[in-house]
């Protein structure tokens, strides 16, 4: 039982937290700009590498580099929106989907050009896990990641419920045409969507680097489970996306738990779990678990 918690549940929760942070942006962009943003994983990678440079040049720990990663990633997101997505805004959204596919490629090749393709780590050395009650072993980084995600979820909830910008964003996600008629400036909402989506993506990317290592496919590899999480939570439902992320992350880890000495699923097929859950969901409950929009 303790093995299950230490080696499956906690890592699952950690992975789930990372998916959750990425999925919020995907869900909001899908809800407000109405397109599947294929470059979202690569925004995560951008954040992870921006923080890596800060760690290298300033000698600060990775957690302290988060603000730098956020600012840089937001700038990249706003830049790509301005030059690659905005010109296509009035066309069928599928063009923007294709453009975001291209942006994913552009971002990744730029990262490879600037930082090279070697895997990097923020800090070397073995972190001793914290041992609670003699049996519960949790790595410090796991606590940090899970706690930070929890705090972010609460802040996000407060932002969406109590601020004018938050409520405007929910209104646009509900009905963009009506939002325009009600006088909400769509471009301003779009800007905020990118800022929040990119910030959380940067944090997620840095967390991946903290948990494992920083490499150029870091974000792209997570795109599918993050989409699954966003759909699970219901499109345009950022908090649903957080729940979806946690569920997908846990499912991926727990599926490899040996029951009767036999793993449920070979760990090498872990990433298929998210996909199967996603397709099942799309077929049987397209509005997601928490009643999002069906686009």
């Amino acid at each position, binding site marked *: 039982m303790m093995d299950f918690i230490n080696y499956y549940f906690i890592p699952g929760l950690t992975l789930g937290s990372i998916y959750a942070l990425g999925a919020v942006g995907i869900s909001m962009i899908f809800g407000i700009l109405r397109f599947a943003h294929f470059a979202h994983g690569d925004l995560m990678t951008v954040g992870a590498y921006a923080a890596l440079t800060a760690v290298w040049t300033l000698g600060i720990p990775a957690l302290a580099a988060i603000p730098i990663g956020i600012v840089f990633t937001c700038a990249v997101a706003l830049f790509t929106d301005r030059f690659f997505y905005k010109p296509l805004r009035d066309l069928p959204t599928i063009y923007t989907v*294709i453009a975001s*596919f291209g942006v994913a490629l552009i971002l990744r090749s730029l990262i490879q*050009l600037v930082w090279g393709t070697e895997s990097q780590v923020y800090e070397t050395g073995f972190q001793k896990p914290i041992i609670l009650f003699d049996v519960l072993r949790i790595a410090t980084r796991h606590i940090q990641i899970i706690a930070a995600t929890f705090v972010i979820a609460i802040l996000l909830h407060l932002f969406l419920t109590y601020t004018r910008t938050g409520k405007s964003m929910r209104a646009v996600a509900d009905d963009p045409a009506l939002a325009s008629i009600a006088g909400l400036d769509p471009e301003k909402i779009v800007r905020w969507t990118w800022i929040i989506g990119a910030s959380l993506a940067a944090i997620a990317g840095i967390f991946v680097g903290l948990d494992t290592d920083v490499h150029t496919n870091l974000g792209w590899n997570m795109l*599918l489970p993050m989409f699954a999480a966003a*759909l699970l939570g219901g499109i345009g439902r950022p908090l649903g996306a957080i729940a979806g992320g946690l569920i997908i992350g846990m499912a991926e880890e727990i599926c490899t738990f040996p029951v009767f000495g036999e793993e449920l699923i070979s760990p090498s097929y872990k990433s298929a779990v998210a996909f199967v859950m996603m*397709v099942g969901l799309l077929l049987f409950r397209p509005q997601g678990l928490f009643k999002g929009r069906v*686009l």
Partner: protein
Amino acid sequence: MELAGLFFYLITFLTMAGIYAVLCLALNMQWGFGGLFNAGIAGFYAIGAYAAAIVTSAGSKSHVGGFDLPIIVGLVVAGIIAGLVGWAVARLCVRLKSDYLAIATIGIAEIIRLFIVNEEWLTNGSLGISHIPRPMEDWFVGKPAEIAFALFVWSLVLLTWFVAHRLYISPWGRVLRAIRDNEEAAESIGKDVQSFRTQTFVIGAIFMAVAGALSAHYFKYFSPDATEPILVTFLVWVMLIAGGSGNNKGAILGALVVWGIWSMTEILTSMLPDGMTTRSSYIRMLLIGLFLQFVLQRYRSGLLPERAPKLRI
């Protein structure tokens, strides 16, 4: 000598462009005719390559295979397997909105890639399959063999074009385009939208597998690296949009032009100073990514736009 070198460079170019033309025509059936967003082209391409490699190569101790069957059997098996997988995917996913279908097909391609990497008994894992035969190998050797293979590839391009063209002008193709342009209207006149979409997805998947088989025969070696989604899926998308989606001649032209640009970037990046050459492939990716943005913003309907009136995508 110079001229001969150029000529054989052209043969290599045409061979690869031909393989991409088959992929591009196949994507045109799915996207151009049917409006189905397939972002998992690499998956069907890989199925075709591996099926053909396993069926036609001579024995190997490291994995199942060595059936040593004729190339044509390999092509047929590749098409059948990809068609079946495509059918399963289509049954599950074609009713989804295009964005969702894109996500789902990326997932399918990822699962196919996982399968190929992990099931070593069948695919030899990441080491890949080698000694894949080429058609007409016994008759031609050396340079003539290159020419023969290029002709073989282009005869299949023609075949694919013929099929695509017949489908496009047939009543079936008209219904398909009607569905693409206005699903509700097509449904209201009693057309079974899902089954039309499933059919076009399966036909597209079969030809993608044919292209995969061709490249396995061409390279004589195939490993999971060759199914990198960027190279296959992305380039084919750029080709179709640049060429003109919905237009079969445009699809072939797009394959030629974009493969030409892609090859040119190789020449360009080879002129970079020494320190940069290791990174040249990333520069090429960057350039092709920017090229796509340029096409999307300026030449959306492509070099040869679809001629039939287009209402809505």
